[in-house]
């Protein structure tokens, strides 16, 4: 095994292990911290794949934005030291069976499919991404970019409207 392969398996084990801990631990604050480590592991996988731009976006948006938002909402809504209620054993067994069957089905599909790999190098640069992102020709992504910006604006206004504190006399 070469160093690159060892690093890949280490990153994958880290990512999957912390993800399992994030969905099984019973303290909600620890769950958020394990999720943080899992997202950092995903960013490391992007670095390993040599797509540094996506790795940077992942760290900025997920680790810097979403996890902080989740931690804030945990502090606003519950006692973080308290343990969550255990799931009923029938639900756990059913979920484990469902996930194992789904995983093995997908595993079979992937292992039996032969992918047509190319030996061409993956040439992405940030300037290429930027030119295509704002391009209006056949391969341009200008319209989706505008739609996403409208969506972000709508989400921002929606969040303020939903979470705003109404006057106590109105209630």
């Amino acid at each position, binding site marked *: 095994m070469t160093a690159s392969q060892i690093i890949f398996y280490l990153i994958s084990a880290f990512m999957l292990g912390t993800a399992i801990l994030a969905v099984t631990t019973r303290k909600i604050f620890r769950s958020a911290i394990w999720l943080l480590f899992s997202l950092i592991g995903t960013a490391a996988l992007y670095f390993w794949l040599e*797509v540094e731009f996506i790795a940077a976006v992942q760290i900025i948006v997920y680790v810097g934005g979403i996890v902080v938002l*989740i931690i804030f909402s945990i502090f606003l809504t519950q006692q973080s030291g308290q343990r969550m209620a255990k799931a009923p054993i029938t639900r756990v067994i059913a979920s484990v069976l469902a996930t194992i069957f789904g995983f093995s089905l997908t595993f079979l599909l992937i292992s039996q499919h032969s992918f047509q790999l190319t030996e061409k190098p993956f040439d992405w640069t940030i300037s290429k991404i930027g030119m295509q992102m704002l391009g209006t020709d056949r391969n341009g992504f200008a319209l989706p970019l505008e739609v996403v910006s409208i969506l972000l604006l709508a989400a921002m206004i929606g969040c303020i409207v939903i979470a705003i504190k109404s006057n106590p006399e109105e209630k």
Partner: protein
Amino acid sequence: MNEIPISHILFVSTALFFIGMYGLFTRRNMITMLMAIELILNSVNINFVVFNKYLYPDKLDGIFFTIFIIAIAAAEAAVAIAIIINLYRNHQSIDVEEAEEMKF
């Protein structure tokens, strides 16, 4: 870089997807369910980047899909947390079993 076959990376992302699925099935707390959804979206992002890199290296569509999914996931998380905080204010609980005011 092609020392790792593409199928191994796809196995990792599949495992991440089903770990998120397990969390979504077993948890009944809205914030932890939101975390499970973030895990699922992450596994989809890995798939897009890997397919783009290994199968269509002369195009950039997978990278664009990943960027848009990350943006939409951020918007979704913000709206979900606003709803959760509003629900907590009205019910003092964020358990999905107890949020049954709009049932039927």
